[in-house]
């Protein structure tokens, strides 16, 4: 057993981080927020970089990597708040022509919600009667499909164990949450190191320090859960990982906002974008209630 990244995995992570820094830096993020549209050029570049074909066999033009590698890549996507139905398109890469190359945008119905419906070329699932929602996340347009999901989550864990595809979507969404939780931790720590009050940087105050430490604990625990679930592929472990990753992303965004004080409450700080996306992702893949029920059913 060696539960660390292999050299190849570390290189992959560095490569993806550099690629995303180039394709989707902070300036791109802010202009995406103002544009509110999916950037087709970006999508194609992601396709060219193998983002969607990551797990397709090399014989089919893919990169031939596994779920653990995909998790690392999606963690990076979450870190920079990459917009678009990346998980659905990635999962469709083997079956929907054009998805692997980033020529086609694929979305799917998930927990009664459909992200990016108007921009998608292909939708997995039935969207009859879908109504547009004024999405809380400026970077995730949403539709709701009546009669599926919503606030009355059915508590029928045993029959609702995720199928393989759904489990993978859940896990990759969880990986994005981990990336986001890491990004807000980094942002909080960076701010705490520079912002001064009462004649010292606020990171010297224990009340602030302890918020930051709590953020790290959440992100480390969630990451261990997500990585392990990627290795085992076990549906119950995936449900548990999603639960912890949702908690880490949402709570870390809130604590990051707190560390930023008034600045955190402005549109200019990126914190709100992380928080809102975390809220959206928490409703996708598998909600907390269902994840808790799924893990409990495994007891």
């Amino acid at each position: 057993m060696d539960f660390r990244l292999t050299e190849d995995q570390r290189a992959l992570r560095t490569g993806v981080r550099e690629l995303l820094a180039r394709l989707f830096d902070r300036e791109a993020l802010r202009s995406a927020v103002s544009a509110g549209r999916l950037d087709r050029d970006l999508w194609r570049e992601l396709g060219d970089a193998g983002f969607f074909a990551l797990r397709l066999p090399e014989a089919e033009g893919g990169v031939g990597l596994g779920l653990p590698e995909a998790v690392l890549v999606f963690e990076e996507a979450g870190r920079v708040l990459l917009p678009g139905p990346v998980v659905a398109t990635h999962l469709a890469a083997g079956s929907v022509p054009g998805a692997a190359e980033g020529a086609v945008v694929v979305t799917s119905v998930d927990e009664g919600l459909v992200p990016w419906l108007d921009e998608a070329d292909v939708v997995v699932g039935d969207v009859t009667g879908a109504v547009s929602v004024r999405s809380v996340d400026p970077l995730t347009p949403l539709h709701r499909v009546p009669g599926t999901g919503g606030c009355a989550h059915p508590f029928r864990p045993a029959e609702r164990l995720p199928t393989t595809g759904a489990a993978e979507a859940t896990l990759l969404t969880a990986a994005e949450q981990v990336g986001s939780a890491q990004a807000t931790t980094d942002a909080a720590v960076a701010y705490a190191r520079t912002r001064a009050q009462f004649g010292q940087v606020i990171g010297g105050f224990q009340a602030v320090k302890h918020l930051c430490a709590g953020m790290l604990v959440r992100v480390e625990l969630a990451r261990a859960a997500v990585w392990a679930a990627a290795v085992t592929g076990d549906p119950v472990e995936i449900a548990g990982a999603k639960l912890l990753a949702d908690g880490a992303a949402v709570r870390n965004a809130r604590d990051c906002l707190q560390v930023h004080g008034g600045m955190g409450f402005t549109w200019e700080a990126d914190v709100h974008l992380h928080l809102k996306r975390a809220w959206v992702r928490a409703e996708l893949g598998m909600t907390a209630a269902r994840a808790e029920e799924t893990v409990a059913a495994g007891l």
Partner: protein
Amino acid sequence: MDLSCTDEEEAYRARLREWLAATLPGLPERPDPLDWPARRAYDCGWQRRLYDAGYADTHWDASPTQRLIFLEETERAGAPYVGANFVGLLHAGPTIAAEGTEAQRARWLPPILRGDEVWCQGFSEPDAGSDLASLRTKAVRDGDAYVVTGQKIWTSHAEVADWCELLVRTDPEAPKHRGITWLAMPMDAPGITVRPLRTLAGSTEFAEVFLDEVRVPVSHRVGEENDGWRVTMVTLSFERGTAFVGEVVACRRLLGELARTARKNGTWDDPVLRRRLGRLSAEFQALWRLTQANVSEAQASGGVPGAGGSVFKLHYSHARQELYDAAAAVLGPDALDLGRDWTLDRLSSLSYTIAAGTSQIQRNIVAERILGLPKGR
């Protein structure tokens, strides 16, 4: 990211599992948990059986993976916990293995493995708990011995211990972190008085230890004189990094038991409680994975766990308390019965956010040593 075991490790697991299945049914009942002398005899007896069967060397000589397998299998089978052997096996032993001389390893490690000698930890003092480095118990060199005078407190298992990993101040003039030395003190030396303290669970599991001119041979010093703080950091990293590993598996087993009880007594039908158990189960599973990550890191960096142990301990200590609160919700009035293990364990779980460094101190460590935030005054 490799969670798999080698064929050799799997063979070890299978052998151990078989041995546990054959051995555990014949084991006598565990004595009253409040009777420490009886507990010592029982815990050491169990350690001796492990030793005789060839399963005792997992604590510092075996590969970390093998150690995890050992803990996983013994806990899963419901084997006795290390108990009175905690300090020796889980942090004094590993410290001596990492920092001791050949002669010290030869003198102290085998008796720990055989369950012949029990250790305790003499770190805390009445005025030096969280601020451990301000300790004042002094040791003055006199020929080939240190003469030690002072007081220790909260010393777990002091009543039944043969040896004490003792921190003393050997240079009162030096800055507080610099003048400390790590000694192995025999608990039967003249000048030692142990006065048991009663815990909130009614147990005498820890004590005050008074030291009046106790002579400790210089050869019992682990590490250099005045370099004890560095050795202490090694001890603490084992205490926080790996010592609780087995307990995580135990908590997962308890959760399974709780779920069975809840299904029987009807509390499982309460979705709030059911979901609470589900969340706890996800947390303990993740803590187990985090342990595997920490152990992998330690293995790669030469065996001593890093500050990641504080990340683990922070979450674990709170999750453990929540587990027993959830247990109380499942057990109802039975949770008020001191005759049940659950109730005693619930009471002991209250120490987890205090012992081995409080949660507040762990947060300081995470913030300062891992996140690089400035040191507070």
